[in-house]
C-alpha cells in the first residue's frame, strides 16, 4: 500500500502543472473557451510534445506505456486550472477504447496521431433520450457489400465537431459494436455548440455513413465499453479533485480577504466551519480517486473490481463535487454566480463531470446490487 508518487511521476506533474498554469488563468480560460474549438490548439500540441497525449498507450502503438497513475496526475492538473483540452475525453476514453479493442493496425493508425496531437479522436456514445448505458440503440450498423454503414444520432458528443476521428458505438445483431468514422465520411453531419462548462459538444448525425469496425469480429463490445467508461470515470474523478481543490483554495482566500461588517469573512465561524467540511469532502474523495487508480493499475484486478472501484469513485466524486461546488459559490455570495469570476466555472465543470458518465445516485444503484459480497476491503 503506497499512496506516493515516484520521482518520475513528480517530474511529470511539475511539467504538466507548469505548462497548464502558464496557459491558463481565469481570464485566459474565458478567452480560449469563447472561441472555437473551445480549447487551445497550441496547448494541445505542447501536451503532445510532452508525451501527455500518448501516456497510457503502449510504446509500440506510439504511446508512452505509462499507467493510470500518470493519467491521474495529468487529469488533476487539468482540473486545477479547468484546462478545456479534452484529455480525458480523447486520450483516456476514446484512446482507451482503441487501445483495448483495436487491431494492431488500428492502434498504430489511430493512437500514434492522437499521441502526436495530430488527430483528435473522441467517443460518440450518448444518445438523446437515454442515460448512462454502455450499449447503443439509437445508432444502428448495417453490413453491405462495401462494408459497414452507420445510421442514427449520437448526442451530446464532447468535442464532436472538432474531432478528426469518431469512435462510434452502434447496435448490431447480438449487441453493441464499435466503429471508426472519419471526419470526412459521407453522410456524417456534425453540429457543434458550447456547453455550460465552456467546452464543446455536438450532435453527430450518421446517415448510411461508411464506418470501419473497431477490432476483429462483431462480438458484443458492451463489456469493453463498460471498462473504458470506468477508466475514464476514474480519470474524471482526478480532474474533479483538482477542480475541487482550486475551488476550496479560492474560497479560503476569499474568506480571508473579503470584508463584511468590518471584519474578514474568516471571522464568521459559520463560514469557516463550512470551509472545513469542504476540506473533509475533498480529502475523502481524493483518497477514493487515488485508490481507484491503483485498482486500475494493479495486476490481477478483475473487471468486476475495476467497475466497482470506478462506481465508488463516481459516487464520492458526485457527492463531494456537489458539496464543494455549491458551497464554493454560496460562501462567495453574488460574485460566485458571475461568469467574470472564476469559482462558479469550477462548479459548472464539476456539474458537467458529474453528468457525463453517470452520477452518484446512479453509481449507488449499481453498488447496491453488490453489497452482499461481505466487507469492502481497502487493502486487498
Amino acid at each position: 500500500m503506497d499512496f506516493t508518487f515516484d520521482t518520475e511521476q513528480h517530474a511529470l506533474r511539475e511539467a504538466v502543472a507548469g505548462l497548464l498554469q502558464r496557459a491558463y488563468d481565469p481570464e485566459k480560460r474565458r478567452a480560449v473557451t469563447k472561441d472555437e474549438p473551445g480549447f487551445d490548439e497550441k496547448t494541445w500540441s505542447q501536451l503532445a510534445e510532452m508525451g501527455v497525449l500518448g501516456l497510457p498507450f503502449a510504446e509500440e502503438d506510439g504511446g508512452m506505456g505509462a499507467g493510470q497513475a500518470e493519467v491521474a496526475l495529468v487529469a488533476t492538473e487539468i482540473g486545477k486550472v479547468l484546462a478545456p483540452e479534452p484529455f480525458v475525453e480523447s486520450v483516456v476514453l476514446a484512446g482507451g477504447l482503441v487501445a483495448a479493442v483495436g487491431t494492431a493496425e488500428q492502434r498504430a493508425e489511430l493512437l500514434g496521431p492522437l499521441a502526436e496531437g495530430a488527430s483528435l479522436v473522441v467517443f460518440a456514445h450518448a444518445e438523446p433520450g437515454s442515460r448512462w448505458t454502455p450499449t447503443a440503440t439509437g445508432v444502428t450498423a448495417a453490413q453491405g457489400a462495401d462494408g459497414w454503414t452507420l445510421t442514427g444520432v449520437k448526442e451530446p458528443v464532447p468535442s464532436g465537431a472538432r474531432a478528426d476521428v469518431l469512435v462510434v458505438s452502434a447496435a448490431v445483431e447480438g449487441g453493441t459494436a464499435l466503429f471508426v468514422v472519419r471526419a470526412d465520411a459521407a453522410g456524417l453531419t456534425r453540429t457543434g455548440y458550447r456547453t455550460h462548462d465552456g467546452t464543446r459538444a455536438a450532435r453527430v448525425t450518421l446517415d448510411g455513413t461508411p464506418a470501419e469496425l473497431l477490432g476483429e469480429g462483431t462480438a458484443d463490445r458492451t463489456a469493453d465499453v463498460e471498462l473504458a467508461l470506468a477508466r475514464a470515470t476514474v480519470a474524471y474523478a482526478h480532474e474533479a479533485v483538482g477542480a475541487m481543490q482550486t475551488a476550496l483554495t479560492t474560497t479560503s482566500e476569499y474568506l480571508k480577504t473579503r470584508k463584511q461588517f468590518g471584519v474578514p469573512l474568516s471571522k464568521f465561524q459559520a463560514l469557516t466551519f463550512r470551509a472545513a467540511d469542504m476540506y473533509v469532502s475533498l480529502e475523502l474523495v481524493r483518497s477514493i480517486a487515488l485508490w481507484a487508480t491503483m485498482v486500475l493499475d494493479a495486476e490481477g484486478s478483475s473487471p468486476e473490481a475495476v467497475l466497482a472501484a470506478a462506481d465508488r469513485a463516481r459516487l464520492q466524486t458526485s457527492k463531494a463535487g456537489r458539496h464543494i461546488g455549491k458551497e464554493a459559490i454560496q460562501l462567495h455570495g453574488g460574485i460566485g454566480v458571475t461568469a467574470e469570476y472564476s469559482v462558479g466555472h469550477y462548479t459548472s465543470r464539476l456539474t458537467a463531470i458529474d453528468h457525463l458518465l453517470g452520477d452518484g445516485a446512479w453509481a449507488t444503484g449499481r453498488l447496491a446490487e453488490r453489497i452482499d459480497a461481505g466487507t469492502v476491503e481497502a487493502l486487498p
Partner: protein
Amino acid sequence: MQLHLSPEDQAFRDEMRTFFTTQVPQSIRDDVAAHRDVTKEQYVEVQQILNAAGLAVPHWPAEWGGRDWTPLQRHIWREEMQLAAVPEPLAFNASMIGPVIAAFGNQEQKERFLPETANLDIWWCQGFSEPDAGSDLASLRTAAVRDGEDWVVNGQKTWTTLGQHADWIFCLCRTDPGAEKKQRGISLLVFPMDTPGVTLRPIELLDGGFEVNEVFFEDVRVPAENLIGEENRGWDYAKFLLGNERVGIARVGATKRMLVDAKAHATQITSGGRPLIEDPSMRARIAELETELLALELTALRVVSNSSDGKPNPASSVLKLRGSELQQAATELIVDIAGPLSLASFADDEATDVPEWARSATPEFLNYRKVSIYGGSNEVQRTIIAGTILGL
C-alpha cells in the same frame, strides 16, 4: 382548524386560475415554463394586462390600485400566477418601491409615480448593494451631497437586476457620513437612469445570461424633491422594503411546477432499460421533495394567516431559506434527470435533438445558486431566525 378553503376562497382561486390561464398570452407563459428569458416587452405586456384587471398591485393601498384582500387571498393570487407560469409583476415596482412610496412618499410623489409604477410605464431598478456592501448593506458608501436644490450622487452599485431595462432607479445613498450609527445616515433617492453621469455595465452570469449590472454614478445631479420620505431615514424604508421582498419569495408555485415538469421529463428518459420515472430511487427522491415542498407551502399558509399587516413576520425567514433550498433542489433534480443530455446546454433548437428542458437544466441550476444569496442570503436569514426568534 379547517382543511378546505372557504367557498369564497375557492371561488377566488377559480377566478384567479381562469384569469391567468386565459387572459395572459400562452406564448409568454410557455416561455416562462420553458425557463426562457422573458423580454422587457413581455413583462410590460403582462403587467399591463394584470393592472387593467386590478391584479398587478393588490397589496397596495386601495386608492392606488390595491384590493382589500386577505393575506390568504394574496397568497392564492401569487401561487396561481406561479402555477400558471405568469411572469409576476416586476418586484422592484410592485413589491419594493411602490409600497415604499405609498407608505412614505408625499402626495406629489404618489401621484407622480404610483400609477406608472403599477402599470410598468416606469421600469424601476434597485440601487442597494455595493461591491463592499453585500450582506452588510448598511456599510454602503455611495454618497449624496446636497448642492443647492440638488443632491449630487457619486459611487457605485452592483447586482442591479434587470437594470438594463430600467427607466428609474431607487437608490440608497449616504447623506450623513458623520452619523453615529452607519444605519442612520442613509437616504432613499430616486432618479432616471438616463440622468447624466449614470452608466451601467452588464455582468455576465454563469448561465451565459445578463440579468444583473453594475451601475456607476459620477456627479449625478438629483433634484431635492426626488428624496423619498425623510432625509437619513432610508434604512427604515429599506428594511420595510426588504421585508416585503421576503414575502412570496418561497416561490412554492414555481417549484411545484418544476416538480410536475420533472416527473414528465423522467418519463421521457430511458435509464437501465426502462423509463427513469420507474426507478425506485428517483421516485423516492421526488416523493421526498414533494413532501418538503408541501411542508413549505403549509408553513407559508401559516405565516400568511398569522401576519399582522405590514410588519414582516420573522418566520418569513423560514420561507426564504427553505424556499430557496427547494428551488435549488428542483433544478438539481432536473439536471440529474437529464443526465448526459444536460451537456447540450447552449445548443440552438435546430442544432440538437436534445429537448429544450434538458439543455436549459444546468444553466438554470447554476443560475439558481443565486436564490440563496439574493434578497438576504440564507446566512442572513439564519441570523434573523437565531436572533429574532430564538433570542440567540
